[in-house]
């Protein structure tokens, strides 16, 4: 499997995700600077977390129009798998690769803590090593993770299995009490129509080995390796 991690000025999870990818893949991913315009043949592109371009204008808005994102979009449209984590998710919505938008958290605070997520679709390249309804613990660290999309569009997305993860309790109860940021229907991550692009606010790479306090996130990278090797 060949993977690349896009690096923007202000990315700060690019190395973490590279370490997590290498542990699952057995080889290092390519690190690609935002000014580059061409990507080689790849199986996976990761748009990492951070504060690309200082979150100017709107989170992800400037990065979405950087030179490399034109190439990422072209590859994604041809079926290359794309994973956007946190700021990467915001960037993917701003490019139009994923529907909806990430708004300011409803409590206006930057929230940094571990949350539980329920796997809502275990039939994708990102989650195939999970079982539907699995509960995983991933950290979140964001101020703008309040997912919103037009209700009509959301119904279609739900019907098409595009909800990837929902915030829940340790036992898998999805309710407002376990919604950290006000996201529509507790949505923590979504797929595009073809389930080849995933964006999520929580960070699988931050709990991907026991040394970090947990390895729930490793299952996502292992799933990708199994699917794409």
């Amino acid at each position, binding site marked *: 499997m060949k993977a690349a991690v896009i690096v923007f000025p202000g990315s700060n999870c690019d190395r973490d995700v590279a370490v997590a990818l290498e542990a699952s893949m057995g080889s290092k991913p390519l690190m690609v600077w935002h000014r580059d315009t061409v990507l080689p043949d790849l199986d996976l592109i990761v748009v990492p977390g951070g504060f690309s371009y200082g979150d100017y204008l709107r989170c992800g808005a400037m990065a979405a*129009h950087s030179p490399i994102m034109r190439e990422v979009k072209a590859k994604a449209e041809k079926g290359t798998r794309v994973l956007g984590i946190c700021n990467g998710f915001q960037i993917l919505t701003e490019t139009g690769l994923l529907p909806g938008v990430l*708004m300011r958290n409803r409590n206006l605070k930057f929230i940094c803590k571990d949350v539980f997520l329920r796997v809502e679709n275990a039939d994708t390249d990102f989650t195939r090593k999970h079982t539907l309804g699995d509960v995983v613990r991933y950290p979140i660290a964001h101020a703008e993770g309040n997912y919103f999309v037009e209700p009509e569009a959301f119904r279609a997305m739900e019907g098409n299995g595009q909800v990837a993860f929902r915030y829940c309790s340790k036992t898998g109860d999805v309710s407002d009490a376990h919604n950290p940021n006000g996201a529509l229907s507790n949505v923590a991550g979504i797929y595009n129509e073809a389930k080849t692009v995933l964006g999520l606010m929580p960070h699988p790479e931050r709990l991907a080995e026991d040394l970090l306090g947990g390895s729930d996130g490793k299952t996502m990278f292992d799933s990708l390796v199994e699917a794409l090797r």
Partner: protein
Amino acid sequence: MKAKVHITLKNGVLDPQGKAVQHALGSLGFGGVNDVRQGKYIELDLAETDRAKAKDAVEQMCKGLLANTVIENYAIELVD
């Protein structure tokens, strides 16, 4: 020519920042503020002298970058 662009949240989109400002105004003793909606104001200095062309260009700028039309509206005012 200058373009003044106001970007505002669409009706029905929750504005927690506006709500926080409203509460702060209330605690400062400014009563009677029924609602606060916060937005952005962007001023562009354009080389274009044709109003119609300038309006078109700024529309494209709003749709392409300045506003996220999923949740935001924009209004353009041109000033010579």
